[in-house]
């Protein structure tokens, strides 16, 4: 089966590793599925945080994150995408976003446990790196790997003034995020490798920071996870991509992974289509 791709991304590789058959439906057959509320909510929160930090560099009085979220949410709904609401209502999600951005937020990680008056005050602590008079936000990075005929493309959410790349994640209250999990993630390794290949030298200790925003209505929480990676770990993952993942993709190896956490009708977008699922 011919695979017509001009690039890979960490999420694409993650998808392949989770379930090659799901990857095939998405990237080969390009089957469109409704967008989950998790995705549009997370995207809106992510855009709101980035825009707040960006605006904070241009003006002393930026719109608070709560207002940024309202605008970003409307943009998501205006994109004319089919949404799978999964029993949730637009109103409940707007209220969740409002609570997360306006209430006192309890933060763990990256120092002692502390409270911030709201999300905006919390984000004021992340001063962006400035390059050519612009904050480094949503920076496009590209990585070439010998043996891989197409580049790996990604977008780094934020690089702070200490040179550390950061990524915003919106997570459910119960999802487990820890330094161990963060170290096992492919995303930091690819982003750190991409920056190194571009000659970025402000992060010699290979640090990476996740900013996890919990979807909690009554007592919003956030978690800052800072990890250090090693060149050995980076090179090992690049080897895996070139020697294990890409040849399998090229050879058309798209078996289902029935032991994946995604192998169910809630999380698999192609469940009803796939003969190994409900199809």
């Amino acid at each position, binding site marked *: 089966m011919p695979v017509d791709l001009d690039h890979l991304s960490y999420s694409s590789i993650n998808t392949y590793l989770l379930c090659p058959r799901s990857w095939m439906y998405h990237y080969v057959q390009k089957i469109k599925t409704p967008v989950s509320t998790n995705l549009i909510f997370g995207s809106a929160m992510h855009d709101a945080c980035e825009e707040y930090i960006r605006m904070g560099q241009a003006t002393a009085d930026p719109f608070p994150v709560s207002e940024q979220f309202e605008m970003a949410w409307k943009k998501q709904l205006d994109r004319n995408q089919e949404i799978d609401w999964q029993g949730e209502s637009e109103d409940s999600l707007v209220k969740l976003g409002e609570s997360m951005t306006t209430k006192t937020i309890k933060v763990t990680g990256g120092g002692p446990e502390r409270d911030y008056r709201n999300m905006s005050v919390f984000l004021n602590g992340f001063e962006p790196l400035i390059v050519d008079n612009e904050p480094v936000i949503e920076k496009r990075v590209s990585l070439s790997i010998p043996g891989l005929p197409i580049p790996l493309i990604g977008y780094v959410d934020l690089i702070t003034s200490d040179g550390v790349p950061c990524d915003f994640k919106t997570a459910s209250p119960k999802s487990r995020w820890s330094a161990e999990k963060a170290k096992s993630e492919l995303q930091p390794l690819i982003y750190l*490798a991409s920056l*190194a290949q571009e000659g970025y030298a402000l992060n010699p200790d290979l640090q990476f920071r996740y900013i996890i925003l919990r979807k909690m209505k009554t007592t919003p929480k956030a978690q800052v996870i800072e990890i250090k990676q090693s060149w050995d770990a980076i090179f090992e993952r690049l080897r895996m991509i070139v020697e294990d993942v890409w040849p399998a993709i090229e050879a058309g190896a798209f078996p289902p992974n029935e032991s994946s956490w995604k192998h169910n009708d809630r999380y698999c977008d192609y469940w009803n289509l796939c003969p190994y699922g409900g199809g």
Partner: protein
Amino acid sequence: MTEERALVVRQSRQITESGWKTIMSIAPTATAARMFGVTQEQAAIVMLTGYELGLPISAAFDVIYVSRDGKRVLRPKGALGLVRSSGLLEKFDWESDDTSATVTMKRVDGPEKSMTLTIGQAQTAGWKSAAWQTTPQNMLRWRLIGWLCDLLFPDVLLGLSIADDSYLPVEITSDGDVIDGTTQWITPPVTELTQDTTAPTSVAQSSPQPPTYTEPPIPQPEPAMTLADLLQTWNAARIVEVYGGIPGTPAQVAEAKEKLEQADAS
């Protein structure tokens, strides 16, 4: 007149060590699955040739045929697909009636060539496999397409010969595929049929002169250097320290290797 459906291929490329490992790991499956029904070694050669032609590995079996005696030939349909995907085919046209077929091709950087073949000539030549009995017009057309691809695009086809039952005891189907056979070379009954012209020309007016069929050597893979090659000698931190980053291309890997060797020596 309708357009034939050609295969979609990609640009040619060099085999890497990991690519070769993949091919060797797939060969038993390909043989077992009857994608290629002779030996694992022949299946591997088909995939290697396809890889070099820029094809997805699994598509190679639709394009390349290896006879029992190990000769690689391109199926006529596959040759046309490769030529089309090369971007070098400026014009491809054909006409046919109950008794003859004419095919015209033009390469972007070359003259237009037309060839005509009649059923009478095919009968005189003694071509009489099953497909010649049932769909002679299709057979005429594929014969001419194969000849023109071979004549005008040898670089695109990497010098591979095209399966052709006028030269080889292989049986071609009316869709341009190979059924089976060996490639013991035999004298072609009718051969060079081309003229630089925009008008179709009958083969009867041309003097026979066989196209050159040279047996191509089986290429030995020359794996491009990868990061894994460097890691066999140096650790990752040392590579980054000496090279000043992560090499992104085989050429950069080679450059990094040179720098590392120099650093070790000094």
